[in-house]
């Protein structure tokens, strides 16, 4: 406090004859405001939000780096996350006021000097022994607001820390980790509310979107994603989600899944939150006839009260683990001389959806992978898939028959998705989406199952197989106007990292083979790469500091592929683990 008083006094004495710049430099930084967060997409001096803007376009207006200058991009420093906890590093760094805030595996958070790589502080969350993350002990990033930095933990807690000191301000339980809940997504902060989803889709939990007061951590509203469950607002019951038993039989809506494990995006223009929901539970679809709303959907939610404005279900009555969690990216669709407020979503199920973000109506849906077996296409009028009924895994034998598994089918995409969690990018200059896709299929069959709290609630068996000998991963440029693939880059191992695009006509993404790569955004030609020493499954960012353009990405192989990848896991088993933050820049001269 003393320091604050001193600098204010100093500022007061200077104010008569000095520029306000001096004032800003002397006063302690109040941190990003709500307005700063809403405008973060155009702020090139900082990276304030997951997705590089609330709409999550992952687009930077910076042009210093371009397809010509990128060959001069060089590493500045690398920072090790330390310890023996070298597992998947899926984070996107947050950059503010010369500091990088980055999360690591096992619920760790670091503040690092952006210029030197010097560690300012580190927070190591003490995890109980019984955590149940389905798909590696990852975290996807932090959220910044005013004087605090926030992140969610594997034991399903939300921690707020002072961003200068790393001291914990509050620590709130989101869900009970013993029932299978965890949390790996980056929180979203809108108008002073911190909004989170939940993980645990394989344990029969109920998907939930929750808003808390960012200052105190007190709950403001909750919205369950499964119809029949009741939301809350300011400590009281609010409304029922959907209509009870409209698309679920009996009591199954109480363990229906629909986890919102990837968090959400926000569109300031329509003042709408977009949260994707996970697969229904159990996997065996024959147990739950109906559409199973609102699983495998995108929900448009009012940030003030948690009410659902509209929904679009990408995979009604899912039987293949096609979570609908993938990010819904708001963009202006310029078509036939009109500008439509649209959103793009590259779904696990293999289709790229363009949806009117004001009402949830489908505009276009087209495949972004080469093979889709479960549906012939999406009916544009009804918005519903045209199923291939014989590609649904068969019902298991009833009763207690031994070896009662149902008919096995070969299905593509595999349950790990044509695109999984790794965020795509949209470039308003090329008007293209850059989608990190994977080409794989699976044998899948159903098995008898009963729900037990805290136990995996699958009722299915599966094994993943690559579709092609020479590649699995494919970075694809998708034209949302036509659904056409404009270019593609094929990668031997599955792609599992986020994408960044810039006004310098560049696209960046990482590969499990250890490279951070840059491509010409129009042609797809590879123009730069750097070997980081372990697989890159994080999301790169760029910003400008001291007049130079920087790029940062985390390196550290892991995530769901080595754990669930079947035949594919064999292909990647020799990739060494790691845990580090790499920072690059384009030097001035």
């Amino acid at each position, binding site marked *: 406090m003393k320091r604050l008083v001193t600098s204010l006094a100093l500022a007061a004495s200077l104010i008569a004859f000095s520029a306000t710049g001096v004032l800003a430099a002397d006063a302690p930084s109040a941190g990003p405001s709500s307005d700063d967060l809403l405008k973060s997409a155009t702020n090139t001096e900082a990276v304030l939000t997951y997705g590089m803007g609330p709409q999550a376009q992952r687009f930077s207006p910076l042009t210093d780096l371009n397809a010509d200058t990128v060959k001069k991009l060089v590493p500045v420093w690398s920072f090790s996350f330390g*310890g023996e*906890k070298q597992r998947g590093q899926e984070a996107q760094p947050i950059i503010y006021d010369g500091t990088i805030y980055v999360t690591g595996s096992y619920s760790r958070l670091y503040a690092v000097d952006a210029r030197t790589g010097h560690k300012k502080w580190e927070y*190591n*969350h*003490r995890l109980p022994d*019984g955590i149940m993350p389905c798909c590696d002990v990852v975290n996807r990033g932090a959220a910044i607001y005013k004087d605090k930095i926030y992140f969610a933990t594997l034991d399903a807690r939300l921690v707020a820390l002072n961003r200068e000191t790393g001291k*914990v301000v509050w620590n709130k339980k989101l869900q009970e980790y013993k029932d299978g809940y965890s949390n790996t997504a980056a929180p979203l902060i809108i108008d002073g509310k911190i909004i989170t989803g939940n993980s645990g889709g394989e344990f029969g939990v109920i998907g939930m979107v929750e808003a808390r007061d960012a200052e105190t951590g007190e709950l403001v509203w909750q919205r369950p994603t499964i119809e029949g469950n009741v939301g809350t607002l300011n400590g009281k019951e609010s409304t029922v989600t959907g209509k009870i038993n409209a698309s679920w039989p009996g009591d199954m809506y109480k363990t229906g899944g629909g986890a919102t494990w990837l968090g959400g995006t926000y569109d300031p223009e329509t003042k709408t939150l977009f949260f994707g929901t996970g697969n229904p539970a159990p996997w065996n679809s024959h147990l739950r006839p109906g559409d199973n709303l609102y699983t495998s959907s995108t929900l448009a939610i009012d940030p003030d009260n948690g009410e659902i404005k509209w929904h679009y279900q990408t995979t009604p009555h899912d039987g293949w683990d096609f979570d609908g969690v993938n990010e819904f990216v708001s963009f202006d669709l310029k078509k036939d001389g009109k500008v439509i407020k649209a959103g793009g979503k590259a779904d696990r199920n293999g289709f790229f959806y363009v949806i009117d973000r004001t009402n949830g109506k489908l505009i276009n849906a087209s495949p972004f992978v080469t093979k889709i077996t479960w549906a012939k296409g999406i009916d544009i009028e009804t918005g519903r898939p045209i199923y291939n009924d014989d590609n649904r895994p068969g019902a298991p034998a009833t009763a207690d028959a031994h070896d009662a598994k149902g008919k096995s089918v070969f299905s593509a995409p595999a349950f790990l998705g044509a695109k999984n969690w790794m965020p795509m990018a949209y470039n308003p200059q090329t008007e293209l989406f850059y989608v990190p896709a994977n080409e794989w299929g699976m044998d899948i069959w159903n098995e008898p199952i009963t729900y037990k709290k805290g136990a995996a609630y699958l009722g299915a068996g599966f094994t993943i197989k690559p579709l092609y000998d020479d590649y699995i991963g494919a970075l694809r440029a998708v034209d949302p106007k036509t659904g056409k693939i404009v270019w593609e880059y094929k990668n031997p191992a599955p792609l599992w990292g986020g994408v960044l695009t810039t006004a310098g006509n560049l696209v960046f993404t990482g590969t499990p083979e250890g490279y951070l790569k840059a491509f010409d955004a129009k042609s797809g030609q590879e123009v730069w790469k750097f070997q980081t020493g372990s697989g890159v499954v994080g999301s790169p960012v760029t910003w400008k500091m001291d007049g130079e353009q920087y790029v940062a990405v985390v390196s550290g192989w892991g995530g769901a592929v080595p754990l669930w990848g079947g035949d594919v896991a064999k292909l990647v088993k020799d990739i060494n683990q790691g845990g580090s933050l790499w920072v690059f820049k384009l030097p001035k001269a």
Partner: protein
Amino acid sequence: MRYALRHMGLAGAMFAVASPALAAGSPSDPLNSVMWEALRDQYFAGAPVVFDTAVKVTAPAAAEDTRAVPISVDATALGRVVEMVAIADLNPFPLVLRYHPGTAAPYIATRIKIQQATALRGAARTADGVWHVSGVLVDAAGGGCSAPPTSYAQKDWADHVGEVQARLWPADPEGVARLRLRIRHPNDTGLVDGIPAYFVETLQVEAQTPGGSPALARIDSLEPVSENPVYSLDLRPPPDATALVLRGRDNQGGEIRATIPMPPPGSKPAMRPAMSPKPAEQPWSVGQ
């Protein structure tokens, strides 16, 4: 105990010569610890320091269990005390705790981890700003700060973090009542491979009275305090107190809260000085 007594005797003798020790310059350390000057500058930051046997530090001459070495600091001989500290010179984290006695008598006891044989100090700051320092030497085998806590052998340790056991004895004729607290917490130092720092940071005792909840005393606790920390305090609860309330938190924002009932009528005040290992046959009252 022989070592400790001898050193305290030595300290006393030096004081006879050096007193009044407030004179210019800083007195030399009667315990001859290599860390003294560094620690003095770090924790007393320019404030006047005297070695004063009026502060009584009690600890075993040889530690039986380096993960839980009992220590008490008693500065009641100084009268009113504003703040107390305990320091283990050769620990990786020398500062054990800071105690703000408030209205309580200046006495605190706890159990600490020590990493190797070391000087253990207690210091009390009187209202005039002077730190009165005393201490003993404790012999020990190594490793108390870098061994994992035993609670991790139990799978369900996380279910019990923050649970409080407490007992309050009736006040003696001077109005001083002994409070003993035990908090379930691994109190990890962060020095064990793969186990992050995770320890109780602040504890405050308040009185529940018809007129409000006055704070009685506060402890700023740190890494060296033992697993499942135990503290003994000598409080002065207001006569109209209906219960005591303990509020605290750990360094990860975990909250600690317990209501401690007043002792049943007819029970006897604690014996003092009380570092008796078995304070009474009555069961501990459990508050949550």
